[in-house]
C-alpha cells in the first residue's frame, strides 16, 4: 500500500490556505448586495483580500484551523489502520509547518497536545469502503466559533410553535440563525439534518456540508425548503459579522434521515464563511486535487 503522508499534507495545506472557488465566487457576488461604505461591505472586502493573501502565502485563511474532519472513501483492500496513521502523521507535519494551529486540548486537564493529535478521534476520520478503484480523501476544517452556534432541536418545540413536519423544521432553523447572530462568522452556510438520533443527526448535518455550493437535495420538497431558508435567513438583516446587512447565509443544505417514532431531531451545523473543504483523489498512480 502506497504511503500517502506527503500527499495528505498537501491536502491539509490546500484546505487551510485556499478557499474552494465556489465559496469564493458566492462571497464575491455578495459584495454588490451591501451598501457602499457600510461595515458589512467593508467586512466582505477584507474577507476577499484575506482569501487572496492566504492562497498566495500558503498561510491559514483563519487562525482557528478547526476540527479536522476527514472522509475517506477507500477501495477494497486498503488498510484503514495505515491510512489513519498516515493522516495523523500528516497532521503533525502540517502543524509544524503552521498550516494548522495546535488545536487539540485535553478537556479534563486543559492541556494542549501541541501537535493536533488528541486521543483516537482528533483528527476525526470517517472511513467508507467503496466499490470503485479510486481512493478519495475529503477534508473539512470547521472552526470553533461556528461550531459553538450549532444547535439541535427536539420537535415539537412549543416555544417556537414548531411541530413535527417541514413547517416545524423551517421555524427551528430560522431560530438557529437568529440566535447565532454574527458569532459564527457570518455569512454562513447551513447544514441541516432532519431525523436520526442525537449523534447521527449532528454528524450528518456536517457531512452534508461536503457538497458544493448550490447543490440541491434531490427531493423537491427539501430543495424548495433549502432555498426558502437561505432567502428568509437573509431577510433577518444580521449581515456579515453581524454588522447588519443583506448577506447572512450563503446556502442551505438539508439531509433527511430515518428517525425513531418517538424522536424528531433537527440539527443545524453552522459553517462560517471560511468554508474550508478540499478533496484529493488517487487514480491509479496519479493524485488529483480538486
Amino acid at each position: 500500500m502506497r504511503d500517502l503522508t506527503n500527499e495528505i499534507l498537501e491536502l491539509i495545506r490546500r484546505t487551510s490556505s485556499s478557499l474552494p472557488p465556489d465559496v469564493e465566487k458566492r462571497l464575491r457576488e455578495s459584495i454588490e448586495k451591501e451598501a457602499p461604505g457600510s461595515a458589512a461591505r467593508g467586512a466582505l472586502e477584507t474577507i476577499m483580500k484575506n482569501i487572496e493573501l492566504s492562497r498566495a502565502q500558503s498561510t491559514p485563511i483563519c487562525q482557528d484551523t478547526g476540527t479536522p474532519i476527514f472522509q475517506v472513501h477507500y477501495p477494497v483492500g486498503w488498510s484503514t489502520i495505515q491510512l489513519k496513521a498516515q493522516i495523523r502523521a500528516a497532521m503533525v507535519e502540517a502543524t509544524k509547518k503552521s498550516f494548522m494551529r495546535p488545536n487539540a486540548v485535553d478537556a479534563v486537564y486543559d492541556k494542549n497536545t501541541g501537535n493536533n493529535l488528541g486521543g483516537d478521534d482528533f483528527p476525526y476520520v470517517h472511513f467508507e469502503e467503496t466499490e470503485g478503484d479510486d481512493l478519495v480523501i475529503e477534508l473539512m476544517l470547521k472552526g470553533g466559533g461556528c461550531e459553538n452556534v450549532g444547535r439541535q432541536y427536539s420537535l415539537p418545540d412549543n416555544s417556537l410553535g414548531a411541530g413535527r413536519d417541514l413547517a416545524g423544521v423551517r421555524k427551528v432553523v430560522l431560530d438557529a440563525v437568529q440566535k447565532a447572530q454574527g458569532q459564527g462568522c457570518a455569512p454562513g452556510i447551513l447544514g441541516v439534518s432532519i431525523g436520526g438520533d442525537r449523534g447521527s443527526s449532528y454528524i450528518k448535518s456536517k457531512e452534508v456540508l461536503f457538497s458544493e455550493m448550490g447543490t440541491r437535495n434531490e427531493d423537491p420538497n427539501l430543495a424548495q425548503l433549502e432555498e426558502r431558508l437561505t432567502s428568509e435567513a437573509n431577510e433577518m438583516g444580521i449581515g456579515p459579522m453581524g454588522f447588519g446587512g443583506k448577506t447572512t447565509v450563503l446556502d442551505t443544505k438539508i439531509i433527511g434521515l430515518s428517525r425513531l417514532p418517538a424522536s424528531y431531531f433537527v440539527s443545524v451545523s453552522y459553517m462560517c464563511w471560511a468554508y474550508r473543504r478540499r478533496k484529493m483523489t488517487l487514480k491509479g498512480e496519479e493524485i488529483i486535487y480538486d
Partner: protein
Amino acid sequence: MKSITTPISDDVIRDLKVGDAVELSGIMVTGRDAAHKWMIETFIKKTRAPQGDDLEVYEELKKLLNGSVIYHCGPVVSGLDTKEYKFVAAGPTTSIREEPYQADVMKHFNVKGVIGKGGMGAKTLKGCAETPGAYLHAIGGAASYIAKTVTKVHGVFKMEFGVPEAMWVIEVKDFPVVVTMDSHGGSQHAVVDESSKKILEGLLEKPY
C-alpha cells in the same frame, strides 16, 4: 477612518462612536478563555493562589495593559522552536465567552479597548461606560490579512496555556477594526439582535 495608537486616553475613547472605522497601532496583548479565567481567579477575585511566575507576569501585565488593548485571539505562530516568533494567522476569536470576566478585567487593568468578534453583552457594555473603553470588532476569519499588521512579537506569557491561549505581546500597525460597542451605551450587536428578533417573529407567523 480614524487612526489610534496605544496607549489610548479617555478622551480618545469617548470620541469613538458605534460605526467608526479605526486603524489601530501600537502594543497590545492577546488574551482569551484561559487568560481571562486566570486573571479573574488569581488577581481580581483571588479565589486561586498565585503559582509559578504568576506574580511577575501580573506586574508586567499591569504596565502593558494600562491604557492598552486586549485582543481575543489564538494565533498561529511560527518560530516556536527558535523563539523567533512570527504571527502567521491571527484573526479574532468569538468574544462572548469572556462576557463573565471582561468588564472586571477592563476596570482592574484600565484596558481601553477589547478587540474580538461577535460582540459582547450588557455587562461588558457597562464596563465600556465605566472604564471607559470600547469594543473593537475585527473581521472574523481574516487571519492572514490581520497577521500582516502584526509588525513585531515582543514576547509571550503563560505559554503553559498552549499557543492559542497564551498571552502574546504584539505590536501592530494599522490593524483594521470597527467600533461596535462604545463608551456611551451604544451597541450595534444589541440593535441587530433586537431587529432580527422582530423579523424572526414575523417569519414564524407566516404559513408554510
